[in-house]
């Protein structure tokens, strides 16, 4: 007697379908990916009842030869790879050869396809995985895959389906993800007989705008960075456009939408400095790298990847984005022509009907950030707060800064710059007055500028402190009383791994740590970074070990250091109600122009906005 039996093919496919076809949206993703793999230029999606009743994907790709139709619906049959080598360098979205078979096993599926060289099309249908015979059909080119009644033969699964609206929402999201990844392909989406989206092939930026909305693309910057065979491109929103939910976050690896902890972590860290911790950044980012350096065969749904050199990828993404955030690109070089922004609701005491958008803009300007000359210089060099005080005029204070006069006084009063030149050179213009001890009002060629003086100054101080300390080595403070702690298996393994190579040891030392193993489950911290000597050594070591394990490197220390610096900056920044002289205000504006990330305070709120003359005219209904 034999208890163990081979399962029938159909059941095997149904089991596989459990993972591959989690819901109609996952089937849609597979079908659209197949169309892209077939080189289609135009893909139309038709849904019925949230995709549960009907999913139809029509493409104009290569089509399937008559002889292969049956194979297309057979498990482990694919045209995309043939060997392990192929798998390791796979560039197509599909490679498992099981999506269609799985989908067919739990629905009523039909494929109509005409291979490029065939004289007519053929159609094959499968009912719950039971294949019929191919028959001739009429179709100009490409392929139509039609999936009806998902889960009709697996009632247990059917029960897990949500409302039509929810399932449709998921399908739409799947559609969006794929549409974003291929701006060069045209897409169409129809639900219950209504056309909902029609996306013509075109430039990436246009696709982002159509799919993610004009608000996003108005507030996002484009980036494209390459280094060492890695490329990161796409669009990311400025921190001021942060969301309270993680809903606008799209990451692609070699064109494939993925969810990846390593990448999200790198992105979050890049935003860390400019974003409040309970806000989420918005972005659509594409990572491209040699396919042999990334393993896509991690999960049947193919939305997870594993990098061969995760540490390098993490570092690259962090730096590329961090840099882009510091220097927003994609704006006119002399940049005070910020894009319009949907206004946050502000109420006014008079004049403007509630809800009407107020001219409110947060742009970026030509950064003239200078090299950090050093700690004290950076701390006190640029903004002579005390020195500019009227009682001790800077000019007579003997400080040798020839260009101070020009930068602190309005152009008319000095070097004979024309207003246009002045705007180019001093995009934030010149101070007019201080409002209630909180805001600085300034005028530039375009109109009025309002600056939150504490927020702006805090950011300036913070950037200076960071600049002064970046690149310093990390002095280590060995502990008189080493701190031992019970460590879990991963922590112990990480320490062992780290200590087993000279590079690993060096990494720990560079981070300012000395950690040794005392017993199979005890570690001891013997030294910590001198700057953080009052911190909880164990918690710090644990964080660092976790980062080393998951991301290969750690920015925990830089972050902790930055927290300290942020507190210092907050204390050092001018407080509300401190009366500033015009010269001091101008000095602040000049410093903002020269400081990276000065458009946001340390918590991600804007530090200034512009109301142009046109905006103001509109408010007063002039020229209408």
């Amino acid at each position, binding site marked *: 007697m034999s208890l163990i039996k081979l399962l029938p093919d159909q059941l095997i496919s149904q089991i596989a379908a459990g993972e591959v076809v989690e819901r109609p949206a996952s089937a849609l993703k597979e079908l659209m990916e197949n169309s892209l793999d077939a080189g289609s230029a135009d893909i139309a999606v038709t849904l019925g009842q949230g995709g549960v009743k009907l999913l139809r994907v029509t493409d104009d790709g290569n089509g399937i030869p008559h002889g292969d139709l049956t194979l297309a619906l057979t498990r482990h049959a694919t045209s995309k790879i043939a060997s392990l080598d192929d798998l390791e360098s796979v560039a197509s979205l599909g490679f498992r050869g099981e999506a269609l078979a799985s989908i067919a096993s739990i629905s009523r599926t039909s494929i109509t396809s005409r291979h490029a060289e065939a004289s007519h099309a053929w159609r094959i249908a499968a009912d719950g995985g039971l294949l019929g015979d191919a028959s001739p059909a009429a179709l100009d080119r490409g392929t139509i895959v039609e999936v009806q009644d998902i889960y009709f033969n697996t009632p247990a699964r059917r029960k897990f389906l949500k409302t039509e609206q929810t399932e449709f929402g998921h399908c739409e999201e799947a559609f969006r993800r794929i549409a974003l990844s291929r701006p060069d392909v045209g897409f169409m989406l129809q639900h219950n007989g209504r056309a909902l989206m029609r996306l013509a092939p075109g430039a990436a930026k246009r696709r982002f705008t159509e799919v993610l909305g004009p608000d996003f693309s108005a507030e996002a910057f484009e980036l494209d960075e390459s280094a060492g065979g890695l490329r990161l491109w796409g669009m990311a929103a400025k921190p001021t456009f942060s969301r309270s939910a993680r809903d606008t976050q799209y990451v692609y690896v070699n064109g494939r939408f993925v969810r990846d902890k390593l990448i999200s972590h790198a992105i979050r860290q890049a935003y860390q400095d400019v974003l409040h911790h309970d806000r989420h950044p918005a972005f659509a980012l594409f990572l491209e790298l040699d396919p042999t350096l990334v393993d896509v065969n991690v999960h049947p749904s193919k939305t997870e990847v594993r990098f061969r050199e995760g540490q390098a990828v993490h570092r690259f993404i962090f730096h590329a984005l961090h840099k882009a955030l510091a220097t927003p690109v994609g704006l006119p070089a002399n940049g005070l022509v910020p894009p319009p922004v949907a206004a946050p609701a502000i109420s006014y005491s008079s004049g403007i009907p509630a809800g009407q958008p107020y001219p409110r803009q947060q742009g970026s300007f030509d950064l003239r950030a200078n090299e950090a000359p*050093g700690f004290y210089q950076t701390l006190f060099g640029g903004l002579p707060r005390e020195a500019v005080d009227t009682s001790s005029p800077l000019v007579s204070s003997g400080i040798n800064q020839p260009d101070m006069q020009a930068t602190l006084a309005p152009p008319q009063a000095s070097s004979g710059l024309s207003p246009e030149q002045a705007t180019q050179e001093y995009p934030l213009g010149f101070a007019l007055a201080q409002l209630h001890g909180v805001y600085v009002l300034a005028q530039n060629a375009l109109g009025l500028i309002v600056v939150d003086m504490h927020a702006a100054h805090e950011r300036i101080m913070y950037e200076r402190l960071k600049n002064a*300390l970046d690149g*310093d080595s990390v002095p280590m403070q060995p502990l*008189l*009383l080493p701190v031992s702690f019970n460590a879990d298996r991963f922590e112990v393994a990480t320490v062992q791994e780290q200590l087993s190579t000279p590079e690993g040891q060096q990494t720990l030392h560079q981070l300012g740590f000395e950690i040794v193993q005392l017993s199979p489950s005890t570690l001891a911290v013997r030294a910590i970074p*001198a*700057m953080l000597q009052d911190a*909880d050594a*164990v918690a710090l070591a644990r964080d660092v070990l976790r980062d080393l394990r998951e991301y290969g490197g750690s920015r925990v220390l830089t972050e902790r250091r930055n927290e300290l610096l942020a507190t210092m900056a907050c204390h050092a920044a001018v407080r509300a109600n401190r009366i500033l002289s015009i010269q001091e205000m101008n000095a602040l504006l000049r410093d903002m122009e020269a400081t990276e990330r000065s458009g946001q305070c340390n918590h991600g709120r804007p530090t200034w906005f512009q109301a142009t003359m046109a905006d103001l005219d509109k408010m007063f209904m002039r020229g209408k």
Partner: protein
Amino acid sequence: MNIKINRDTLLKPLSSVTSIVERRHTLPILSNLLLEAKDEKIVLTATDLEMQISLALQTPVGGELSTTISAKKLLDICRSLPENAEITMATAESRIQVKTGKSRFNLQTLPAADYPVMTKATGTTYTVVSIDQKSLKRLFKQVEFAMAQQDIRYYLNGLLFEVNGNRLNVVGTDGHRLSFTSTELAQTYEKQELILPRKTVIELIKLLDDSEEEVTIEIASGQVNFSFGDIKLISKVIDGKFPDYTRVIPVGHKNSFNVDRMTILLAMQRASILSNEKYRGIRMVLGSDSLRLISTNSEQEEAEEELEIAYGGDSLDIGFNVTYMIDVLNNVNCDTVTFSFADANSSCLVTVADDETYKYVVMPMRI
């Protein structure tokens, strides 16, 4: 119930007990102090539930009183009254009237019976140690600065108080440096140790004076009592194991030199101006008969101080957190200090000429 008392008699005891009253408390009665007067004696008691100070004054009060009243407010009132003002206090229901001359203050009270008085642990055996106030104060001051502040290793947020044979040892450490001192006792005891909470130590330093008067210390389990002058202080002790200090204090460091305390202290203070403000590193560079103190900040600004010393040991270049050095130099009371080293990676030992029991150990920093 009412009493009379002179403002000046009350003021100092009042401010002594009030200093342990926590400013903000979820338990209202803890912002109060307990005031008990009877038989020409007045007793003030304050507590934060971890420690309690009571102060008994022998003074004619002409009546009886037993209540609790806001410590802070009573102190503020007494402070601002004219010198030698005669104060009367009278309670009625849940209020007390404090009156002198034409000033009148009506304050709320809470019942004396509700006051969470800490009592001496009963039924346990005490070890009773005697020492004079001046010596105890000196011991605390020599080590107090090395205690941790709010370390999660809670047992470091206090001082080790150890009676062993005829010696009393007191040790403070924050994990980076350690300060040890010791004195001889009149009697011999079995080894006994406890950890005095940080706050208790700081209060004791404030309350003890430089007299030869005796302090009686009663050590029970979980509790310690200090009695001196009019004061009785009861404190809980920190429950935990203090690190074994004997393993931390090095012996046989062969490279050592003596130096005038003020000279090196001032040199360190000057050099520290240009040390990195975040980690305060300073290098001590030892050569034959010379010591150089060098600091550099992230701006590459540099300070160098050169001191002539008598030194024939190894050449050494060793980094320290200058704060730890300045701390010890500020807190030991003597003219000459001795620094001893093994090598650039081992701890440094600081000792003083006129108290061979004192030892300060500090770890170098790898700059």
